Structure formats: C-alpha cells, structure tokens
C-alpha cells in the first residue's frame, strides 16, 4: 500500500478514502477562512465522498461540496487514525 499515510490534497483522494487534515492552503485568505468556518481545519478527520460533478467531503456531521481548486487546497494525511 504505497498510498497509506501519504500526504495528498483532497482532490487526489479516491471516493471512500479518509484521512486527517494537516494543512489548509487556499489561494486566497478568504477561501481559507471559509474552509475553516465550516470546520475543515487541521486535525479534523475528512472523508472524500465523491469527485464528480463536484468534490464532496464529509468531516464530522458536516458535508461540503467544493470545486477542484478548493479541494486542492486541503492537504490530508491518508489513513491516519483508521
């Protein structure tokens, strides 16, 4: 399992994969703030639900839909805490 514990962006995850958010680096500060505001902050466990037509992630009881650009700004350590 090469992908285990690898560091990837949410955009590179496969549906059903989960991991812990380690960093949020959106291209502009506003986007980072919005991700923080819905609870996508470092330390939170994130699951990718689907990739098409938009990326959908779940963290806790929250579901969030994102486009590729936003998904690429969330860095996840795969499999952590499994």
């Amino acid at each position: 399992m090469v992908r285990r514990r690898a560091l990837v962006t949410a955009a590179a995850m496969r549906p059903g994969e989960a991991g812990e958010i380690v960093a949020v680096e959106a291209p502009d500060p506003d986007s980072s703030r919005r991700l923080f505001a819905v609870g996508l902050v470092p330390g939170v466990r994130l699951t990718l639900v689907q990739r098409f037509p938009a990326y959908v992630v779940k963290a806790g009881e929250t579901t969030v839909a994102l486009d590729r650009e936003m998904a690429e700004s969330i860095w996840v350590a795969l499999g952590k805490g499994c």
Partner: protein
Amino acid sequence: MERRFKVAIVGCPNVGKSVLFGHLTGRYTAVSNYPGTTVEIARGTGRWDGLTFEVVDTPGLYSLSCVTEEEKAARALLMSEPVDWLVHVVDGKNLDRMLPLTFQLVEAGFPVLVVVNMLDEVQAAGLEVDLGALSECLGLPVVGAVLTRGVGVPEIKAFLGRAARSVGRPGLPRRGPAGPEQPCGRVGGPLRPAYDRRTERAVAVLTTLLGAHAPHGRRLSRRALALLCLQEDPDTLDILRSERLDRWPEMARVVRESNRGPHPVRHRIPLALHHLAREMASACVRRVSDPRPTAGQVLGDLLMRPVVGLPVLAGVVYFGLYRFVGRFGAGTLVDALDRVLFLGLVNPWLDRTVDRLFASEVWRELLAHEYGVLTLGLRYAVAIVLPIVGTFFLMFSLLEDSGYLPRLALLADRVLKPLGLSGRALIPLTLGLGCGTMATLVTRTLETRRERVLATFVLALGVPCSAQLGVMMGVLSGRPGALGVWALCVAGALVAAGSAAAGLLPGRAAPFFTEVPPLRLPHPRNVWRKTAARMAWYFREVLPVFLAASVLIWLGRMAGFLPVVLAGLAAVCVRLGLPKETAVVYLFGFLRRDYGAAGLYDLAPALSTPSLVVASVTLTLFVPCLAQTVLMYRERGPVAATAILAAALGAALGSGYVLGRILPLVWGGAPW
C-alpha cells in the same frame, strides 16, 4: 413610549434561524434589503409575557471575520444597530464548528443566549449533548431545541422575557438572569478564549492604540476589533484607517509584523478558536448509540450523485420552474389576470373613465389606452409580474427550506463554469426562459457581484423569454433548417460572448464552495411566510419600474422622437440586408419583447429564409425589453447596465451582419 427589547437571531446558514424568527414574531414581518446590498433582512415584532419584542433575523454568519456579502451584512447590522440580546442558534450535531462564533460574539461584548437546535438530528446521529455542561463551559445560558417542532420555544421566550425585565436594573449580570430550567453557571461571566502569547501581545498593543472608546458607531468591543484587525479583515482595517488617522501607521505595523513568518496570527486566531471549540464539544457531546441515517440524509446523499441527481435536477427544473412557474404562473395565471381581468374588465373601464375625466389626448394617453401608466404599467406589474413572482418564490422557498439548493448548485457547477458562473446561476437562467425581467431580479440570489453582472449579461443577450420563444418557434418551425441555424447561432453567441465577458471582467471566478445540509421537510407555515414577505417586497420594487417604463413610452410618443429612432433603426436594418419594415419589429421588440416577435410573425412570409434567420437571430440577441432594461439599470447600476446593453447590441448587430453576408453566399437564398 416604552422602549422595545431588541433581539437579533444569529448563526450559520441552515441552522433554523428563520424558523425561530417565525415562532417569535407575529403575522407581520417585513423583508428588506440591508442598505447597499442585496441581502435580505427580516424584521418583525413579537408579544409575550406582557412585553413587546423587536426581532431581527440576520443573514447566515459563520464567523465575525466575514467573507460573503451575507456575512458582511449580518456583521454590519451587529456593528451598527443597538441590540439588547443575541440569540445564537447552533446545530447540535456540529457544535465543534458552531462554537467559534459563540466565542467571537462573547469577545465582542454581546449578551448571548445559545440555542442548541436540531436535537432530533443529534439523536439520529447517535449523539447526546449535555446542555448543563455546555452552559457551564461557556458561562452562557443554553436552551435545547427542535425548532421545527416548536420544542424549546417556550423556554427561549421565557428567558428573553426575564432578560427584558432586567434591563436597566443594576446588579444583574450582563449574561442575564439565571433560572432553574436554564443552567447558568460559571462564576465570573462568560468564557473568553485566550490566545498564544504572541497574539495576546499584539491584541494588547492594538487595544491600547484603539484608545478609550471604540470607533464611532461600532458596537464591537476593542478586543474584538483588535482581533479582526490582526486577521487582516479588510472592512475593519478600512474603518480604522479612516477613523484613527494619527495612530493608523503604528497599528498597520503591528498587524503586518504579526502576520509575518510561517505561522501568521491571522491563521492562529481561527485555529485557536476551533481547537477550543473541539475540546468543548468533545467534553459536552457523547456518543450514545450508532448513527441511524435519516431518510433525509440517505436521499440527500443520493441526490448528489449524478446518476440520481441529474434526473431529479432535470425534473425539478422542468416541473418546478418550467411547468409550475413558466407555464402555470406565467401562462395560466397571467392569462386569467391579464386577459380576463384587465383586458376584459379593468382596462375598458379605465379607458372610459379617463376619457370622461380628461379632454386632452395627452393626459388620456398618459393614464390609459395602449401604453398608459394604469393600463400598461400597473397591469404589467399586477397581472404579469405578481403571478410569476408568487409562483417562483413559492418554489424557491420550498427548495431553500428543503436543503435542495446546494445540491442543485453542485450538480450544475461544471456546466456553468465556462461562463464564469457558479451552479447557483442555473435558477435565474432557467427563469429567463419564462420572463427576463423576473430573472434579472432573481440574479440577486447569486453570491458575488461579478457573478450577478455576468448572469444579467447572459440574460440580456441571448436567453429568449417565453413570449419571444413562442413566436420564434411559430415563425421558424415551418423551416427546420432555419430553426436549426437560429438555435446554433444563439447558443454559439451566448457561449462566446459569455466566456468573453467572463474573461474581460476584472476579478476571478469565486471558487465554488458550499455546505450541503441534510434534506429536511420544509415547514409549510415558514415557506408561506417567506413567500408572502418576498412577494410583497418584490412587488414594491417592480411597480415603479413598470410605471416608469410606461411614462418613458408616453414621453417618446408625445415628444415625437419615435419616428427619429425608427429612421435610424431602418438604416441599420438595410445594412443587414433586411427590409426597412423590420425596424418597427426591433423597436416594438424593445418596448415589449413579445410585440416585437409578433411583428416578425406578420413580416415572415415576405422574407427569404436567410433574411428570416438574420432577423430572428438579431431580434433574440438584441437588447432586452424596456422593463428588463430599466431593472438592469436599477439592479446593476448605470455603468454595468450600459456596458451590458452595448455588448448585447454589438453582439446582435455583429452576428446579424456576418450572417447576412455568409448565409446568402452559402445557400444563395435557395429554399431550404
């Protein structure tokens, strides 16, 4: 006069704020725009315990360091209006990401009542919230609720009643009176989050620099203002820059230095709040059983999958928007009101009455007859706009309250991205097939100004309204080749001009991002109240537009400049290779789109097929009708509206010219 106790309901989107608002206020509510924005604010009054309360329902607010226009409006309201108590509604399932706002509200110095809502969904998720412990941790009064079923409402009212009676009495803690059913612990007041040393030092310097009192008219504490500054919140920085000139350079330096390096303070502050919130949530929320997904959650997840979601989306657009709003609202209801009521009864009576009262033709024409303020302006607003607005807002409120809108947006996002639009724009664009004026109003539901301008442009340029579409089909259906070329040209021009505009307009497309709440059964009373309040508001906005449009037409006829305009248009038509009679079609197409298209119907037999295609393409792309134009000016401002008109005119004439050259060469005017 007795001063009313003012309560503001705050919280994230989709946590049940408007449901609580409905419970607290009476029948009368007013929806209005927050000044300078297109964000709706609902206000109402409520009476209980022998007291009168003023209740404000603020737009969705995730955090005081705002991003969206709705958040900015909510914060501006908190900054400028005197509010006696805030009711912070939170989703019990997501306490960890709701509490940061609670902390910020406390930091800002507001008295807060926390309402932990959706306890039913909490239970379904297999969780349990210890409200007593939460109140203890926060040092704030906490009430548990299932607002959709009215659970918790009596406790909220009772608490606000006691709070209202305690106003002005000395010796009562700011966080309000404790009662036996409201555990309210924490001696020493509400919890104030502490930050790391570097942040706290910067906050201390900034609060000192802010001086003895907060800037004029701002109701946030100095600590909250300092924290917003450190997070480089643009609006707060602007306020301070303009109000504290002498100390501004020093403050700017502190903000700049705090945000230097790999761990800037603007990241540490929200992270510290979130970590504190997670700790508190894990102390107060327990897992008691395995989650049982509700039907709404299962269905909600399915609707995001293209296989299930796209057919449902098509169904919602077809039945909800096209059949219900477009055919029933804009067709059946409009017909009944317009033909039967106005044209059959009201207008003939108005014509007779006005003729009896006024001898002068000038006044008669202003008030009644074909283009009168009453017979055209008022009739349009009442008979045409009201049914469409009503049916649309009924549908929109249903979709909004059921939690479907974010799903629609995520499914449509990719398709609309090339036009610089997000998935949400699907709603106004579909409505544009019904009535462009209405659709232009509805672009208000889009999030950024850039997106609203682009959607307005696409609507003005090439989305044919139902009246136009009907006649185009009628005119062109006899010549299938022509119909095909027309559809291709309009679609091509739309995509080309739309993406060109998206490329030219400054700023970039806002990245798409939306929270997807679970599907919920909309509350009929809530849906109805929203629909009624919005109908009343939109009607007030649209009536003056239609009245102004008919006065403009009257002026044009009286001053006699219509013939001049006609002559100019005729010259353009001849350049396009069209008979000069088509000028009349264009002019009427501007005054009333359907009239214009109907004029084309009469003209069609005399035109060769290429000419007919040129005429119908240019007429479709041509500037929108007068009412839509007036509305564009009012909604988007003169600069954007003029640019949109110029672009639409250019696109219409340009493609007409090119087609007029190419088509006869290719087909030689032969019958297709």
